[in-house]
């Protein structure tokens, strides 16, 4: 099965978006005549696998390589680098060029920056004295469709760069990406933002509108009705919790990368010792589409049911005479057999983790922290984790959850835990702790925590969640309703106004903008029959809301959004934009900065 997702059922024409990106890339490669060696930065390579099949590239006379510190060995006289605009890659490329010169190779070098060339990179090339030897171009890939309803800006480090380094380049990128979407799908009339970074994105977007005004005709044709921007900073609690949906759990345990997981083939029942295999996970897989957003407990049952019914069918087929049409139905069911086996294998693998007492204990602890009722138990638990030298990231995830819900730790405990961490894991982690402190994830308590108020007002903890027939998004964490999605839900339904009091308790400002072009243009008003008409369903398609998570979103949150979108009385289709799909691990990892 292809890793490139099937986008046919998307509420937006994302296919055209992807095709444009394909064409852009092919054009770049075609324009460089003759045989060439294409060197791709590995992570970018992963992203590109969502856009174009690498085998297709070979048709353009291309040798494909991954960028690494080792110099490029090729007979091609043209070497084309396709890399993101990152400083650290420039030294590597420079050394390749120098190496080529010292070997006396006659080569032409090209660098194509994704999504655009940046002065800071070129500056390093200049300092390394290779800038004049390289032809520089751009591959404007700002956004990649991950699935029918998910767009990724592929900015892994956005959260860290914004929060720790104060480098807001990624925010400009996001605004640009949204602006590009608008040039395809029409300007978005309503923008709601919460959190510092979100408001900056919204501001830059406004600026782009004044710098390059859109025609008023484009305004009327907007396919997307509302843009909601949520800064990850607003809700750091949700990603720190262990996701309990099927896809979320897969991500927690196996790490989903660019819509696929890589695992030992033995897990998938293929007997090839030590060989890794890639399993694509996107909505082309019908069974996955059905179960990805369910609570894992339920998934096991669903799979079991399906297997049983299939077994029953099978026995019936072998035992009795069947009509042709019944046979046909059966064969049709058989077609889904590979999908069944795949997910049964995966679920089996997951349950080896979920049945461990330590896993359950961890879940228990997460809930205890969220309940915010037993401070001392939590503290002791975390302390013991440190003493046992459990993996640092696991410790930090809980610790962050603990610190954020308490709006920091009393100085005594803060210093004590930090000291224990340094003693147990080494002093090189001082830099990581410093980063966490800068970001406010692990800090000294200065004000009283308002988590209880927020929790109560937004009903974040839901007792008695029925995971099999959920009636609330809380099912995704078996009892905790993700804060971010509660906010989105409210923003979609009624905007920020009715919940201003609560928004003030959460980090960062919030804004609500209505684009001037729409209110003043009379044609628009008549077309839509006033602003109330916006919510109405026109020609059978529902209005679209683009929810952008600045700093990343988890699969569990996506599941919750899909759940919302599927609810009766929801007048909108939701499309999700994110800097990257994250989980607690990957987020905390970006904040790691070993001194050593």
């Amino acid at each position: 099965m292809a890793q490139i997702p099937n986008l046919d059922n998307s509420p937006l024409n994302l296919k055209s978006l992807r095709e444009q990106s394909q064409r852009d890339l092919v054009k770049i490669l075609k324009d460089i005549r003759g045989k060439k060696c294409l060197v791709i930065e590995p992570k970018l390579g992963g992203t590109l696998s969502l856009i174009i099949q690498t085998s297709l590239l070979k048709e353009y006379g291309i040798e494909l390589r991954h960028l690494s510190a080792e110099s490029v060995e090729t007979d091609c006289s043209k070497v084309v680098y396709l890399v993101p605009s990152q400083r650290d890659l420039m030294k590597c490329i420079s050394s390749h060029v120098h190496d080529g010169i010292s070997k006396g190779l006659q080569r032409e070098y090209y660098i194509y920056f994704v999504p655009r060339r940046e002065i800071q990179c070129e500056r390093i090339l200049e300092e390394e004295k290779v800038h004049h030897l390289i032809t520089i171009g751009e591959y404007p890939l700002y956004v990649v469709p991950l699935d029918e309803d998910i767009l990724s800006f592929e900015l892994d480090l956005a959260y860290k760069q914004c929060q720790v380094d104060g480098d807001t380049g990624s925010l400009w990128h996001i605004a640009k990406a949204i602006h590009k979407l608008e040039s395809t799908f029409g300007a978005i009339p309503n923008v709601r933002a919460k959190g510092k970074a979100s408001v900056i994105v919204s501001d830059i977007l406004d600026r782009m509108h004044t710098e390059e005004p859109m025609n008023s005709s484009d305004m009327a044709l907007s396919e997307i009705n509302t843009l909601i921007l949520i800064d990850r900073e607003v809700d750091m609690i949700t990603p720190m919790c262990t996701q309990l949906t099927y896809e979320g759990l897969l991500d927690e345990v196996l790490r989903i990368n660019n819509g696929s997981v890589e695992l030992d083939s033995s897990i998938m029942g293929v007997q090839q010792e030590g060989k890794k295999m890639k399993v694509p996970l996107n909505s082309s897989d019908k069974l996955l589409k059905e179960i990805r957003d369910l609570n894992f407990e339920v998934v096991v049952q669903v799979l079991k049911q399906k297997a049983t019914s299939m077994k029953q069918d099978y026995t019936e087929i072998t035992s009795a005479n069947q009509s042709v049409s019944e046979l046909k139905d059966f064969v049709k069911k058989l077609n889904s057999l590979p999908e069944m086996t795949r997910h049964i294998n995966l679920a089996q693998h997951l349950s080896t983790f979920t049945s461990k007492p330590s896993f359950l204990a961890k879940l228990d602890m997460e809930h205890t922290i969220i309940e915010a009722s037993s401070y001392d138990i939590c503290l002791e638990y975390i302390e013991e984790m440190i003493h046992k030298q459990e993996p640092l990231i696991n410790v930090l995830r809980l610790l962050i959850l603990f610190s954020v819900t308490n709006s920091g730790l009393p100085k005594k405990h803060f210093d004590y835990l930090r000291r224990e961490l340094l003693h147990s894991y080494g002093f090189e982690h001082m830099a990581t702790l410093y980063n966490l402190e800068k970001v406010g994830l692990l800090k000294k308590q200065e004000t009283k925590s308002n988590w209880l108020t927020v929790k109560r007002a937004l009903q974040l903890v839901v007792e008695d969640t029925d995971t099999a027939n959920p009636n609330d998004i809380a099912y995704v964490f078996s009892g905790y309703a993700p804060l971010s999605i509660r906010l989105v839900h409210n923003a979609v339904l009624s905007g920020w106004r009715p919940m201003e009091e609560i928004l003030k308790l959460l980090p960062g400002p919030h804004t609500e903008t209505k684009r001037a072009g729409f209110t003043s243009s009379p044609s628009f008003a008549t077309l839509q029959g006033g602003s109330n008409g916006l919510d109405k369903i026109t020609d059978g398609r529902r209005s679209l809301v683009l929810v952008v998570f600045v700093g990343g979103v988890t699969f569990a949150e996506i599941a919750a959004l899909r759940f919302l979108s599927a609810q009766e009385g929801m007048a909108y289709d939701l499309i999700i934009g994110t800097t990257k799909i994250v989980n607690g691990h990957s987020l905390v990892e970006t904040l790691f900065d070993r001194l050593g």
Partner: protein
Amino acid sequence: MANVSVAAEWQLLYNRYYRKPELYPMRWKNIDLSRNKVACAPFGGPIAVIRDDSKIVQLYSESALRKLRIFTSSGVLISDTVWKNPGGRLIGMSWTEDQTLICIVQDGTVYRYNIHAEPIEPNVTLGKECFEQNVVECVFWGNGVVCLTEGGLLFCIPDFKVMRSCQLAETGAEDLPNCMAVIEPKYTVSGNVEVLVGIGDGILIVDEDGVQTVEGEVVQGPVQKMVVSWDGKYLAIFTHDGRILVTDINFKGVLLEYNCESALPPEQLAWCGLDSVLLYWDDTPLLMVGPRGDPVHYFYDEPLLLIPECDGVRILSNTSLEFLQRVPDSTVSIFKIGSTSPAALLYDALDHFDRRSAKADENLRLIQKSLPEAVEACIDAAGHEFDVSRQRTLLRAASYGQAFCSNFQRDRIQEMCKTLRVLNAVRDPEIGIPLSINQYKLLTPSVLIARLINAHRHLLALRISEYVGMNQEVVIMHWACSKITASLAIPDPALLEILLDKLKLCRGISYAAVAAHADKNGRRKLAAMLVEHEPRSSKQVPLLLSIGEEDTALMKATESGDTDLVYLVLFHIWQKKQPLEFFGMIQARPLPRDLFISYARCYKHEFLKDFFLSTGQLQEVAFLLWKESWELGKNPMASKGSPLHGPRIKLIDKAQNLFAETKEHTFESKAAEEHAKLLRIQHELEVSTKQAIFVDSSISDTIRTCIVLGNHRAAMKVKTEFKVSEKRWYWLKVFALATIRDWEALEKFSKEKRPPTGYRPFVEACVDADEKGEALKYIPKLADLRERAEAYARIGMAKEAADAASQAKDGELLGRLKLTFQQNAAASSLFDTLRDRLSFQGV
């Protein structure tokens, strides 16, 4: 009838009519073409006039210095300048496609002027050979020139936009050629210019790569003059025996032959459109020869200049400018004497209608079926007219006829009116661009507008571009730039006002481009004021930098949110200013500061330290030093166990001191202190154990390593040295002992005293090591019943687990444990009964 008088002015050449309406009486005074070198641009372009220095002429009341004067086609002076250029005689002068005047003098220097007679620098030379040999003749085409030197060499500038000269192949002939003609690059197969050289008895085709002799009957004997038609397909040749020949450009077949009975070649030979050829000797009538029939003679008593156009020839004399053209077919059909074509009848009908005669209706009936084509002919004929009243009459006829047509494209008339309005506007003698409709179409409106702008006719250009629905940005932009150049005397604020007033007419216009022009003209302040209005930061910021407004640039870049722009400014300032000044500029601005730090962190460590020191962020310097200490550690020179640990520790000490400077960083300071201490201890341990396994492990790991190595005293020492808590100590020691599977020691340790952690560490260590027996020693000691139950469950003792759980009265736990023992039916039922009992108790 009026029609007669129109056709009366026509001449018939074989079966074609020609006419030559006067375009303008020349407005200039005292210009004698015979005394001057004159260059006229095609498409009704300007005329450059300069006294001919190859002729002996009488000076009247004029300066001996020659003046280069530039007129419009109507003879209105646009500009003049004194010709003082060195380099000898002026050999060739011509206008390029973008209306630059090219003047080539004897020594091969090329001088260029714009339409305002301002020299365009730099001057270009054709090369050393030209300088040595002297240029004797130049043949121009729209965008290039071929020059002949006295030595018979050919040089070429193939493109005036590039202005690079090249030498063409040598002909090898000893004599100088009689005549030359050029086939433009766009009409040759090779895409390079080809020169036809009439030399000796034949014609050579010369290009960059070689020389070719023309074969064929056409060329017999020396050729005296040649000219290529404007479409590059035909060649007119004047032979040594006084004949004029027209042939295909490949010399295949003779299309026209006429004996002029003159041994002397004509002074001018020109194509009139593609239909006929004009020959001009200064003492005989102008001769027009067509493919068949008798030639036509035109009588003039003045010197003439023939200006070939695509659809005719303009004839310039001292007093007037005429346009000789073949009468268009539509015009012929209407105005030919005795014409009964539908168009003529329609035209006639209008006349009757105007005189309220019923014959109008009669005429219309006659042509009913062919009415649309009659209307079309009237519209077309109107387009070809230069006379406004006749245009109007013809259009009225068309519109009259159209009223009776059911299916005629209605916008044709409107379109023609539009075109004619534009044409009439530029034909005005003040503007002086006498374009025919065909020329206009070939030239295209945008080029016409460009030419108007170039001649500083901005208002007209603006009106036309608005009228024909083109973007006005070009016009306004050029206007603004010209205005700035021309308004040295106007103070900045006033000029800004004037400029803004017009610039705002056009949305999306680049204020930055105008500002850049202002800056180039030395008006930096005006530039600064203009750039303020540029909405696009990506254009605004670079300009602000180039005019030295670094502070504003930094502010604008920051506002834009585009980090790339901020970096642009940062690097600019960084390079230009002293470090301290640079630091001062960025210190109070979060985004630029953070970006600088982020860049410097990975590329300019030392410089970053300077920055932090200058801004008093000592803790940041401390972190950098601390980081360096690790880098030293990685350095192979500072390998483990060697005394080179000294420098590392020194760096950490330094960091510690810096942290200690501020009281917010006591924690970091202590950590650094401990780190240094740890390194020293680890170093000693490596020396004493002779094993390089300690350095850079954590305190806990060091303790574990010591215990694993059996060095309990060292472990204890580390413990006390760093005040490791009893709890942690227990976990560490238990795990370490389990690692070496020293169960005896473990048991002894458990009995030392009541463990502060309880017995959990012992149970976990044993269970993890899969030592059931060992684990059983500690499980009963677990205080918490639930824990005990789970521990039993983990080693698979269902019954004990169930007992413990039921003692703890925890139904949920029982349920979970049951799941664990799912495969074991007996155990499973055990849990069920226990749970039932529990729930009864609950009730």
